[in-house]
């Protein structure tokens, strides 16, 4: 696999504030890559550097084999972008804005555009000043997917969409993925990222703190187990990898480090397991674990 986006040690400062602090990011061609982080972590700044809208102060960034600043115009022919904050021209209609964005990018598939307008239930004859946030976002999303490009950069594209439109959006992402396109998806919606993304990067205060497939990340965290046995459970608290255990003679609830799962289960079978449910960690839990101390600190 080749690399669509490769960023290492990226630094961007605004005055004294360090928005990106040696950030790393690697997105392989053909994958859908989730880009996660709390507000102000530097997601949009990273994307704007990748688009050549901001100039990096340090580090390396390569986009589709080119330099994001020097080769901006050439690269932009090969990608489509949905900004986090969609601003349109109040006196142009949605349909005009879609055609304009697609034309400026280098061309439009008219049939695909009409099909997308239909699927997203957008009224393209309305002036943009009358659109809600969700409808403005639909304009940007339709304009992006109506272009057949190699890379889609989507900055929180669904934050204003209703659940039906969210489903349509997920279909669209799957379609471009099937055609071998690459997607960088910044999002706060965990279910969306879990449903769509092959790999995720979690950033915090301008640094990458975690990167990998969801399975890999899950491996780094804990699974919740709830178990009922025939014989009273003893000594569970001393088993390595077990956390937050609540034992009530033959019942127990606890979290276990996923890497220690095997020997914990072996230990439990001594007490004759009658029922067992296990819940793999959700992305949300992963995320909260990385930011939990920040939340705690804020309290």
């Amino acid at each position, binding site marked *: 696999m080749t690399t669509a986006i490769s960023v290492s040690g990226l630094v961007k400062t605004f005055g004294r504030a360090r928005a990106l602090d040696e950030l790393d990011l690697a997105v392989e061609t053909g994958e859908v890559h989730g880009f996660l982080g709390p507000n102000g972590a530097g997601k949009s700044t990273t994307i*704007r550097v990748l*688009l050549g*809208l*901001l*100039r990096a102060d340090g580090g390396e960034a390569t986009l589709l084999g080119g330099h994001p600043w020097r080769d*901006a*115009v*050439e690269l*932009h*022919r090969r*990608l489509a*972008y949905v*900004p986090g*904050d*969609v*601003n*349109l*021209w*109040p*006196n*142009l*209609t949605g*349909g*005009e804005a*879609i*055609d*304009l*964005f697609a*034309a*400026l*990018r*280098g061309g439009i598939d008219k049939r695909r555009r009409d099909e997308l307008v239909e699927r997203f239930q957008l*009224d*393209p*004859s*309305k*002036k943009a*000043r*009358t659109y809600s946030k969700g409808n403005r976002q639909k304009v*940007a999303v339709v304009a992006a997917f109506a272009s057949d490009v190699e890379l889609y*950069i989507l900055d929180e594209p669904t934050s204003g969409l209703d659940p039906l439109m969210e489903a349509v959006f997920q279909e669209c992402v799957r379609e471009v993925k099937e055609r071998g396109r690459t997607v960088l998806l910044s999002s706060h919606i965990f279910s969306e990222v879990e449903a769509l993304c092959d790999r995720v990067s979690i950033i915090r205060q301008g640094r990458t703190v975690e990167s990998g497939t969801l399975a890999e990340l899950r491996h780094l965290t804990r699974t919740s187990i709830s178990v009922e046995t025939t014989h009273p459970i003893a000594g569970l608290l001393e088993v390595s990898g077990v956390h937050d255990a609540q034992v009530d003679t033959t019942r127990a609830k606890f979290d276990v480090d996923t890497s220690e799962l095997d020997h914990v289960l072996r230990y439990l079978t001594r007490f004759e397991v009658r029922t067992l449910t296990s819940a793999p960690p959700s992305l949300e839990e992963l995320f909260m674990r990385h930011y939990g101390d920040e939340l705690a600190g804020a309290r």
Partner: protein
Amino acid sequence: MSAFTGTARLTRLALRRDRIQLPLWILGTVLLLWTTISATREQYPTEEDRLQALTTVAGSPAVLILRSAPTNTSEGGMLVFQILTFLALLAGFMSTLAVVRHTRQNEETGRSEMLGAMVVGRYASLTAALVTAVIANAVLAMLIALVLVGSGLGGAGAVAAGVAVGAAGVSFAGLAAVVAQAAQGARAANGMAAAAIGIAFLVRGFGDAFGEIQANGYTMDNAWPVWLSPIGWAEQVRPYAGERLWVLALPLLLFAGSVAVSFALAGRRDVGMGLIAARPGPRSAKRALLSPLGLAWRLQRGTLLGWAIGVGAMAAVVGSLSGTVEEAYRDNAKAAETIAKIGGGGTSNLVDAFFAAMMAIIGAMVAGYVVQALMRPRAEEAGGPAEAVLATATGRLRWLGSHLAVAVGGATALLLLAGLCAGLVYGLTEGDLGTHLADMTGAALVQLPAALILAGVAIAAYGLLPRLAVGLAWAAFTVSLVLGQLGDLLGLPQAVRDISPFSHVPAVPAVDATAGPLLALVAVALAFGIAGMASFRRRNLAL
């Protein structure tokens, strides 16, 4: 809860937001007055000097349009003649910008929606904007009176002058409240309010220019158009010339009336919407829109159309005045001298000198258009769609260049239109159509290089200091205007006046144009423009 709940709090918020902007407006206006006082004293130290000057200009419509009709030869009277209408003009712009800023602009940015959801009455926002404007004008009026008293020009005249200017500002605040409700958006509201101020200034100008000169040879009976304009009312208060305070009832009535209308409109209008419901538009774009230039044209054409109407009408009126001007100058040898001097010497044709002065005003209007047009890229960049556009295969130079092309093309078209309108009307009323068309078109087009310099400065400001660009570009325009058009009045040395590009425009058709200064202006404009473009290409977007 009444419809006015929260007004006091919103007023404090408005004053807090304007804590730099309004004091700058007020102090700038007062500074202009203060400079004029000392310049007037230096230039016209004695009653004799003043009488001579006023007798000369009384027969010169071109000067009267820009100043006002002389009322008497006292120091105060001279000062009022020189500067009162400009002070009223500045008070007008300060007021309309403030009212639109705190009403329509708040709606566009969604701030009103947040405020409207709080314990805030339906009319609170509009009332707070008006109260803010009234406070600003009251402070301005007080400072004007204080500066006059401090300069030894005390008495009823000082108070009348201050109040007359403040009342003009307040009446424009009322008009702005109406257009803020009626217009489609803040940009349109500001445009309509500015047009109203410009029309008020010109209407009064024609009233002054074509008044009847009285037996003493320098005071005049104004023609009736003066009474149609809030700026004309400020003159008619007649500070230092038998103050007529009852005239102040007119601006106050206009204010009360427009406030009533704006409240009625606010009561039946939805937040964020204009009075005219938005109609559905095309479902897909025409080919002409689908390029950076097509987009820039689409975004700017409305502004250009508004200016074209104003400039065309002004030029047609100017063209129609040739006969009147000739008549006014016929028996006035002194005026001939003055006008010839203004025209740069070498001509005794008063009508040509009049047209040169009028074309200079049109040139300044067109420069104003250029600055406004070139601030559009900044609006597109700051919280606008420029981010998404520049993330397409649109290069930065092509994007900014498209806006520049529309602005420069628009300026050329406006000047051409002005020349054609003036020449056509002139030729049709006086005969000899071909010559007059050519002369007027030439006189209009020589104004272009000065407008180009301001375009260059605007682009340079945008490229180098985007967050300050709007203020810097308008400051450059104002300074150029003051130094170029008022430098003489303020008694500034030629070296200082030469800073303004307007000082270098030849007074065509009164004198022949020479290529040298015009080419030099174009070269300076290019240097600014290239510097701005180069730094825009290299900088971060200031989103």
